[in-house]
């Protein structure tokens, strides 16, 4: 009896906890890791080629199936692919008094009833009302989950919502940055997309501008004053 009960409890515990464990992306990925499927997510502006930029951050955006969890890994020569970590910022209300006043509970309001509003002018000659204002829309207030984690280091990972769209900012270091996106539906179904983003030095950009300016100065010398180009 006791043995049977413990077996049942073990099975129930496994059913409860296994799904949670199974959706956790691995701590590291092999350099040549491959996914089991493709098409879970679609990245914007990505053809598979290396991306170059002068900006210190890159907007990673795209679309994917709802509830797919995406985890970002960064490649390091010695450590391989490791999860990117972030520290969410504090979100206390900034008050002059210095103490945060917590918001009250969100009220789910719904405004209904589109009627002609009171801004009407009566034309006495023709005795008609001319509604000279734009008719008001109704408003529906929607409650969503907020990101309320503050101060704790966590993985750069997110779940795709109902809209299927996502957008995240990746911080870059100078030179080549290699990322792997681990998009997971379940333990059996995951996709891995690798991308190379190279952050160019701004000096290069300045050099190009200098050359342009110099060329302009030289061209000016070729044109005598007073003459139209």
């Amino acid at each position, binding site marked *: 009896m006791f043995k049977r009960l413990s077996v049942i409890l073990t099975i129930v515990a496994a059913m409860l906890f296994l799904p949670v464990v199974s959706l956790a992306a691995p701590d590291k990925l092999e350099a040549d890791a491959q996914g089991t499927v493709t098409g879970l997510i679609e990245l914007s502006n990505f053809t598979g080629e290396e991306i170059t930029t*002068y900006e210190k951050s890159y907007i990673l955006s795209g679309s994917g199936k709802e509830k797919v969890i995406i985890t970002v890994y960064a490649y390091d020569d010695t450590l391989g692919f490791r999860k990117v970590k972030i520290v969410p910022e504090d979100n206390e209300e*900034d008050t002059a008094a210095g103490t945060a006043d917590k918001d009250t509970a969100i009220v789910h309001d719904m405004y209904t*009833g589109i009627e002609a509003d009171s801004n009407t002018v009566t034309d006495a000659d023709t005795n008609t009302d001319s509604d000279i204002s734009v008719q008001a829309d109704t408003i529906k207030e929607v409650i969503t989950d907020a990101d*309320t984690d503050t101060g704790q280091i966590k993985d750069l990972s997110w779940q795709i919502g*109902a*809209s299927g769209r996502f*957008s995240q900012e990746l911080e870059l270091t100078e030179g080549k940055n290699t990322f792997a996106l681990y998009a997971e539906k379940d333990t059996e179904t995951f996709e891995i997309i690798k991308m190379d983003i190279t952050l160019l030095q701004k000096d290069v950009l300045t050099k190009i501008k200098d050359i342009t300016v110099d060329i302009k100065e030289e061209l000016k010398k070729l044109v005598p004053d007073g003459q139209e180009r």
Partner: protein
Amino acid sequence: MAKDKLKTFMLIFLVSVSLFFTKQIWFSEKLWSSDYNFFAKWESNTLLRSVFNRVGGGNSQRLKTDVSKERILNPQKFVVNIGGKKAIFRQDDRLYDQMNGVIKDIYTELLENTRQLNPRTVDEEEWFEVLRSKSLYAYIDFGIVCNIDVLGQILGIENTQLANHVQNFRESIIVPGDSISDDIVIYIREAKNIDDPSDDVFSRINFIYDKTKFGTLKELEDNDFPRYTFSFEQEFHRQKATSQVVIAPHVLIPSSRQYLPILQSYNMLDIENDRQVENILEAFDYSTNTLRQYREADGTLLYVENSSKLNIYPDGRVEYKAVEAGKGLKLKEETGVPTLHDSLRMAMELMEQVGLLNHSLHLTSHLVENGEEPGAYTFNFGYFYNGYPITMIRNNKPIDNPVQIKIVNGTLQYYYQYAREYMGINGMYSNVSMLNAVDGAYGAYEQDAGDAGKQMDITNITLRYFDKGNETKLLPKWSISVKDVKDTYVVPAVK
């Protein structure tokens, strides 16, 4: 002897008191009936007032606002491309005035230009490409469609050559151009159909301009402003197999959390403030004494004259209605049909005279000619705080136009103003991202449609405040408009 002194003193005292009370009775309108007032009639005489004021005897200081009317017509925002990402500058942001000065200068030169302009029509792809990639430009968003002639008149320019090529412009981009030529490039998005941007036409104009004037904007490159990208840059405007949501291409998506103000709203109008009420009456040319006035149980003041009615409500509303077409307050003195610009100027001067103008007001109606009823113009104004729109909600209904003025041939037909003032009391970072909000809205949209997986076309997403009149704090919310859906989905941006 002492008795005589006492009598003299008493006499002087009594005479002084009687003079004082006589003055109160003769000149204080509160003690008179509204039917007849000999002295009140003379006191309200304009000529006598001006004389009286010059000798310093009058209490005729009009309540003035220190708000510039021109602010109402400024662009709602500038979007500057800094190395591929966008920064938004709104009216109260640092550098806005500086940018506005430069851009106003560019447009003044363009509209004054007498040399041949050769606008070239371009396609929408080029417009988007310029938005995406050109270094350091300004995308100017007035929030309304504006006739080019009217824009010229606002800048003090009559008969601009540009009007031969472009009639009603919706948006504009200024590109500094390359560093070799002296040309800058101006792209104009022209509205062919005011209500349907899909019919817009795009033009490009090369224009000679002194680029050293851009120098002040270079500091933008070195500053760490919050960044945005347009929806089209992230391909959110395209349908995808893995998403049911499409977001209009011009929607700006923040790359990071935004620091947003928390507001408080106030009623600007104190109905017990006699001077403020008098100010309003004078603005509409109502005599404070020779008129029929009534006071309702809730404190509302009702005034009636032969040609119009004026109501002043304790909740801050002022409403003026001409009783017949053609009657009402004459705002112009010259003969001839006033133009759109003339009528706009009259409307704004009237707002200033009413004394309830504040920096939160911004024009929200299009500045285009009324083809159906020439000479008749309706101007709508809305409230904004630092470029973020504010929607007033009263009795559970949104008020689209808290200020509305209708002028026909220079005569005021209708004036409505809900006098509110908005102030920032503190700030907070948003913790509900725009895409979080879109997720929430899509869930509600699916439920409403009764069709799981139905595509949702989002036409606009803005941060907006909702003033219900009874809250101590107004928090920012994402306001999501969907094509072919009357509902606006509202999602709190801070939680």
